[in-house]
């Protein structure tokens, strides 16, 4: 497409005369050619000129999609919210919720920054899963929920590591325990357990250190963090007889905590 704004091959159609269908299809075409600004104008033309035709309803949804594609997420959310309020029983309502969740999802900040956008995304994605549990969108939403949780866990770990480097062990323990308790499904749990072992050793709590390392070994036998814990315990010669290296692999589909309690008692 040409670099300089207006397309040369765009034929100026008088919006009021053309049928809603042609306007709508023009919009879809410019959307596919990724001329999002043009597509938005064409969908708005449908809404203005044929406000009560079913086309206008679809055009509104497509306008939201075009805004999403050109990364104007807040505008997209405003339009989709309006669509959901006006047409709660529309055929594509699931898609509207899903698109709205994606808009929040795109604005997640990296773990050093404020995670408010991640929490918004989580709420919106959860709404998609609750309202349309078996739709295709729900499957993707569940995966994105895991990614959001992983992100939040990443932030807790980042702060925990910083406190540990500053020798502030109380703060570090609480942060790592939050990851272990609230973000069990994320892949940060292995490192959290290792960090807890480290801190328990620094504080001299050798039984807790052994127990935490055992849980880490039992649940994540292959993880490098378990190796670190193992070596750390070996360096402080706390290993005789407590090695759980050869523990049997955990039976499938028991939740993390059942496996944990199972391994201790």
């Amino acid at each position: 497409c040409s670099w300089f704004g207006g397309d040369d091959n765009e034929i100026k159609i008088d919006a009021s005369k053309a049928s809603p269908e042609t306007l709508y299809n023009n919009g879809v075409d410019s959307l596919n050619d990724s001329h999002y600004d043009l597509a938005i104008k064409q969908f708005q033309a449908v809404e203005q000129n044929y406000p009560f035709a079913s086309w206008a309803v679809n055009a509104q949804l497509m306008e939201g999609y075009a805004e999403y594609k050109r990364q104007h997420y807040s505008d997209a959310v405003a339009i989709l919210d309006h669509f959901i309020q006006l047409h709660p029983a529309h055929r594509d309502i699931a898609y509207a919720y899903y698109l709205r969740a994606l808009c929040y999802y795109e604005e997640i900040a990296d773990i050093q920054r404020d995670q408010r956008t991640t929490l918004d995304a989580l709420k919106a994605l959860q709404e998609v899963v609750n309202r349309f549990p078996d739709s295709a969108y729900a499957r993707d939403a569940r995966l994105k929920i895991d990614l959001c949780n992983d992100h939040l866990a990443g932030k807790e770990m980042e702060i925990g590591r910083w406190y540990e480097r500053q020798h502030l062990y109380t703060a570090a323990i609480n942060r790592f325990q939050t990851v272990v308790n609230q973000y069990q499904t994320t892949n940060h749990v292995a490192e959290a357990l290792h960090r807890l072992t480290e801190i328990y050793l620094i504080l001299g709590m050798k039984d807790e250190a052994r127990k935490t390392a055992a849980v880490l070994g039992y649940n994540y036998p292959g993880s490098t963090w378990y190796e670190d814990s193992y070596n750390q315990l070996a360096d402080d010669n706390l290993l005789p007889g407590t090695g759980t290296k050869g523990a049997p692999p955990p039976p499938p589909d028991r939740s993390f905590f059942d496996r944990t309690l199972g391994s201790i008692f």
Partner: protein
Amino acid sequence: QDRQSAAPATQSGSAPKSAAHTRSASRAVAAGGLIQQIRIEGAQRVEPGTIESYMLVQPGDPFDPDRIDRSLKTLYATGLFSDVSLTRQGNTLVVKVVENPVINRIAFEGNHKLSDDQLRADLQLRPHGVFTAAAAEADRQHILDLYAKKGRYDAHVDPKLIHLANNEVDVVFEINEGETTLTSKIVFVGNQAFDESRLREVIASRQQAWFRLLSSSDEYDPDRVKYDKELLRRFYLKNGYVDFEVKNATAELSPDRKSFVLTFTLSEGERYRVGKVSVDSQLHKLNGDDLLPDVQLETDDWYDGDAVERSVNLITRDVQARGYPFVEVKPRISRNKAKHIVDLVFIVGDGPRVYVERIDIQGNTRTEDKVIRRQFAFAEGDAFSADTAKTTRQRLQDLGYFSNVNVTPSPGSAPDKAIITTAVQEKSTGELSLGGGYSTDAGALLDVGIKEKNLLGTGVQANANAVLAQYQNSIDLSLTDPYFLDRNLVAGVDLFYVDINDFFVAQYSERRGGVAFRLGYDFNEHIRQSLNYTFVDRDVYNVYEGYPYLQGPAFIGPVLVPEHYALFGGTSYYIRAQANWTTLSQFGQTFTVDYRDSPTNPHAGWLARLGVDAAGAGGSSAFIRTKVDGQAFIPLDAFTGNSDWGISLSAGAGQLFNLGQNEQFIDRFFLGGDNLRGFLPGGAGPHDAFTGDALGGRFIYTQSTELHFPLPVSPDLGVSGRAFVDVGGLVGANFENGRCPGSGYPLSYFGIPTNAGSVCPPISSNYNYAPRLGAGVGVSWQTPFGLINIDVAPFVIKQPQDQTELIRFGFGTRF
């Protein structure tokens, strides 16, 4: 199109919402029978399916008036409809709706003080949204409140509707801002101890005056009047009026609604002296008397509210340092009305035991989390106290990254646990500064700078600065990380290039470019040290011979010389001998002990610094240069009762030891300009007897006494005056064993008929330790366009060949 008023009362067409709502509900639907069909009329934009989903009755349900009425209410609650009516026709339930119009555009007319965006910020009405009369009224009130805050109590706002096709509307807010209501007069009733003009200085509100064109302090603002009452209470308490009370503060609007008259009625009561002072400690193993030194008041002093508050803070901090994290200090005053004596008891008790469970930081969309977290005076798990929260908030604000910081505790998972939520509002920390100005050192100058205090949110400061001036051009880039590797370490690197043409000091130009590495650390809050390594390539150039002229018979040293040619002008022989590229490789350290009350504008306390620089290590000049200097600030509040008065004393000395070969003259100390006002920069000290060029010196001492005083003009103008006396001395421009580098001028040059021998130009006042003195007055004026500094030093004591300077003028602006 014609504009219809959107105010509910006069909305034409349909009766106001609430009325319609009740009228149709009263025609109860006849009960009995089943609803066979629901017919919806008047729905255009909203789909029938949507309306049915909100209805509580479906086809096949009985005609139950109660549920039908509730359906009516839910339909109204959606806010989609201006009117709904449910009627029964046979067995069909007819739902007749009139849809609320959808807003196409919102516009404002007549707003100057507030921009469209400020007004549109939190309106309920939204483009694409549904228009309701209630939301329009709420927005009208919201806009009126915004104007009230701006001091416009006379504003009128009325929303107007432009009806478009297919039930869409444009909403236009027609605004008439009216005049700002100013405070024309401030009156005090019942004040014997202090006169009205003194009290007017205390409060924040000001009377209307010509020079207050730009400031808003003369606009009437009810919140500020409340604050004034608090300022008055603190002022009287500070001066011992324990029974003081502001009876009331009223503001009467003048008949033309243009201005207010503010009246404060006060009851001063008597002035009290301090009687017995004691500290009663209820903490076990802590004796109250040990804390007496922290109390800032003695018996027979006048009672002082601020001193009591300072004492409470000092005692709290002292007790906490002794290992009692949870302490609460309450001052109790017992009055003896007859003798106007008040006894003071500080009760030290157990405070609420609260630990920090978690610190949540919000709003940092740009700054990294650890950059904020490392400023906290406490960590998670520590004891929480209001004092540490206040210090943390102050530290975060001093960073300069945030326009607003709030540190608020909220209950945690256990009664003695608190979650600290820190909400920050980031502001742009990048500064593109474009400055112009004139200073006697550099002449007219243009200053272009890019400063970023929080590079990428990592807390690193980066700035690039270029100064183009008549006599001085410089470019420097610098990068500083205040917490290098998360440690108590400040690391920085500077790249610089400077080109100076100091024809004041001598006829030569100097250019130098190089790199410097800095590493600093704090021993504790008062003592810090910084190490640095600098590598500089520099060149002295633009030196020239000067031209010969015929000079009559004259004595050169002991010899009487007949008529001969001598040089006029030109650069000093000593300087010309050193006009070449040299490199300086220097390690330096600065050790600082800083007990001032504030680094930016100190008012009390003192500072001492020791600097040692060692050059050599591959550089072309080798020397050790030591500098020691100190400053002391003496507040004069006790005598003048006004914190603008103050004396600042400063003194310094420096000695350069060269190791082996001669140092470059540009490495020596120079006296005059900033360190000795009344003299040209480098104008005082040893000079080349022939050409008068300043050669610097190896030993320098300076001393300055400055009295700061406010000028009898309203503080709003930001003008402050000073009187100063500067003293200084500089000696030691001689070269190794008195010989000048190279051979000096050949004697024949002066017409002395010998073929061998030469003479080095004598150096005037080379061993003259006598002090130079410059005394005068100065004023600095913080204008909205920049800071203007003027120093006039008429009274000067100088040595021969010193070059003086009456006025120093500096004006720099950032825009």
